[in-house]
């Protein structure tokens, strides 16, 4: 697929400026870039789980969305958009609608990995022709940085605070992209803001236009929750990929494909040390935790290579 950075970035915005998301928010970058995957002339209905994105983009009586948009509740973006897609099918069948619509749900990791997991799983298994996009910022940011099942190990959050008896979140994060791939959906992929956004753009377009259920997991850093300077977002994302913390891969029609292999894999501490939520790991007595972390990253990378036949 050919990719022209300038042309892609100059497409008309489908999320208008003037919304209330934080400066430097990864979620907004994810949304704007996913919507660039829509072909001009095609319409969309956007579904949205409750979260930062919803409360900041559709505050009555204003909406930032150029397309039709529905927010229902926290845990049901998958089911809600299933209903919209079913309505589209029947309206088409009855000859009530000529136009082409695509269906895109956005949810944070709270609405996707956790409370909305059942609804997402149902929508994926039923293979509705829609794409569910998770903007994964690794915690419940809307309510103030509480841990989720997407929160990385040892992160300092408001419900896994670092203390004399705590080194942050004790558990590993859930691998949701793999879990959705195991639903045998036509398309599942994970990406982030990397290089010139080519990976994100191509995957968005593919996910939107692939017939059947598609899932896109986009690591979308949150400067407030991760505690890094806003302007460092591209560096953070790059380090996530170059350390193998967040590998870029896709699973299309059952085939696992690795999209990027770092030439010189960087140690995980390069990713961790940029972020305030991991600050405690760099105290002398916690050095072994970084070793444990590295082992986990390596284990998952090996597993991914095996799946991708690399």
């Amino acid at each position, binding site marked *: 697929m050919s990719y022209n950075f300038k042309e892609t970035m100059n497409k008309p915005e489908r999320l208008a400026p003037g919304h209330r998301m934080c400066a430097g928010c990864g979620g907004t970058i994810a949304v704007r870039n996913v919507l660039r995957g829509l072909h001009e002339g095609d319409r969309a209905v956007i579904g949205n789980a409750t979260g930062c994105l919803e409360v900041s983009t559709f505050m009555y009586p204003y909406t930032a969305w150029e397309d039709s948009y529905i927010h229902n509740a926290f845990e049901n973006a998958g089911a809600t958009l299933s209903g919209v897609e079913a309505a589209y099918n029947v309206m088409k069948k009855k000859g009530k609608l000529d136009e082409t619509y695509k269906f895109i749900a956005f949810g944070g990791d709270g609405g996707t990995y956790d409370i909305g997991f059942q609804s997402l799983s149902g929508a994926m*298994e039923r293979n509705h022709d829609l794409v569910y996009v998770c903007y994964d910022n690794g915690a419940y940011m809307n309510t103030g940085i509480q841990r989720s099942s997407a929160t990385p190990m040892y992160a300092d959050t408001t419900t896994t605070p670092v203390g004399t008896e705590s080194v942050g979140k004790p558990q590993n994060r859930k691998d949701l992209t793999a879990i959705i791939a195991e639903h045998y959906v036509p398309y599942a992929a994970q990406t982030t803001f990397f290089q010139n956004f080519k990976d994100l753009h191509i995957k968005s377009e593919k996910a939107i236009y692939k017939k059947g259920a598609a899932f896109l997991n986009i690591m979308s850093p949150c400067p407030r929750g991760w505690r890094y300077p806003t302007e460092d977002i591209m560096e953070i994302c790059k380090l996530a990929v170059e350390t193998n913390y967040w590998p870029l891969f896709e699973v299309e029609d059952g085939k696992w494909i690795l999209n990027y292999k770092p030439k010189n894999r960087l140690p995980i501490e390069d990713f961790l040390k940029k972020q305030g939520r991991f600050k405690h790991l760099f105290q002398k007595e916690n050095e072994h935790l970084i070793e444990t972390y590295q082992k986990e990253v390596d284990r998952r990378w090996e597993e991914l290579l095996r799946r991708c036949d690399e």
Partner: protein
Amino acid sequence: MAKRERLSGNEAASIALRQINPDVFPAFPITPSTEIPEYFSKFVANGQVDTEFIPVESEHSSMSAALGAEAAGARALTATSSCGMALMWEELYVAASDRLPLMLALVNRALSGPININCDHSDSMGARDSGWIQLYAEDNQEVYDNFVMAYRIAEHKDVRLPIMVCQDGFITSHGVQNMELLEDEEVRNFVGEYQPEHYLLNPKEPMAVGPYAVSNYYMESKYGQVQAMKNAKQVAIDVMNEFAKISGRQYGLFEEYRLEDAEYAIVLIGSAAGTAKDAIDRLREEGRKVGLLKIRFFRPFPGEEIAKALSKVKVVGLMDRAESFSGNGGPLCAETMAALHRAGNTAKTVEYMYGLGGRDIKVEDFWHIFDELEEVANGKVVDGYSYIGLRK
């Protein structure tokens, strides 16, 4: 041309739905409502309807998908009972505040615990404040007729509220009765095509549904809902009058049975009305002035009209099939007493709780109730409220 049939309430509901041919029907099974999506799936499998049936993974998702479909511009519904409705609780409020006229086929069943599959009204009564129109039925004919009328009321431009079409679990849902069906064509003409004014899949006008609204707007949205609910009263009356013309069956917001000269009356909802009518007929033969007021619409609550209908009654027995644990009676009792008080009606009232978790209520029970209402008129003081048929 009417067709005579022998059907269960669930069959009658399913046939009405086939005749209506709704657009989207997501559902998840739960006793005793399961048969409705089952029967309907056969209509889908045999090409008798155009409906998209979505076999979702939970009731929360069935209501969520129905809501999404309705917002998209389709005519949608789902079906459930009891805990299924409890799981979709959050969505009931969202559907009403989004002003989406979707339908819920509710087969009333007791809420857990202990887990119990039989009839009472604890599921729908708990949802009485969710902003849905609530329509109840005594028998299978009324179930069928309510389904035919429901969308017309909900979708009316002065209303635009979701509607819960309720029937008593097992008693009507599984009990088979003789009844009359309308022709498919008659139903389709009566219900008509759904033509929403604003919807997601309108290429001429994108729209956004389900906003975040701060204190500056929230209260106005609730006021809008209550105005719509008030409007639903007249709309329902008009629809019922129109329905009478094609069916020969006239309904109201409630039914008055031998109430015109009654000195002692009971008020209740649902299938127990049949038993009550039988008891009243026997007592009337003995010359006793007894009657029944059977509520059909609990939302909107026809308080003024009920107070008027009971204006000449000396003692009223208020019968609830759902506890509210206030120690002060159930929801029907509370709302009816408030309506009587507001109207300045000084009739004495006695509260009864009956039929919880499917406990039978018999003709004799109603005789005892009417006896007690007379005793109260003669000075007997009743302590609080009583449970009918309680094991001692």
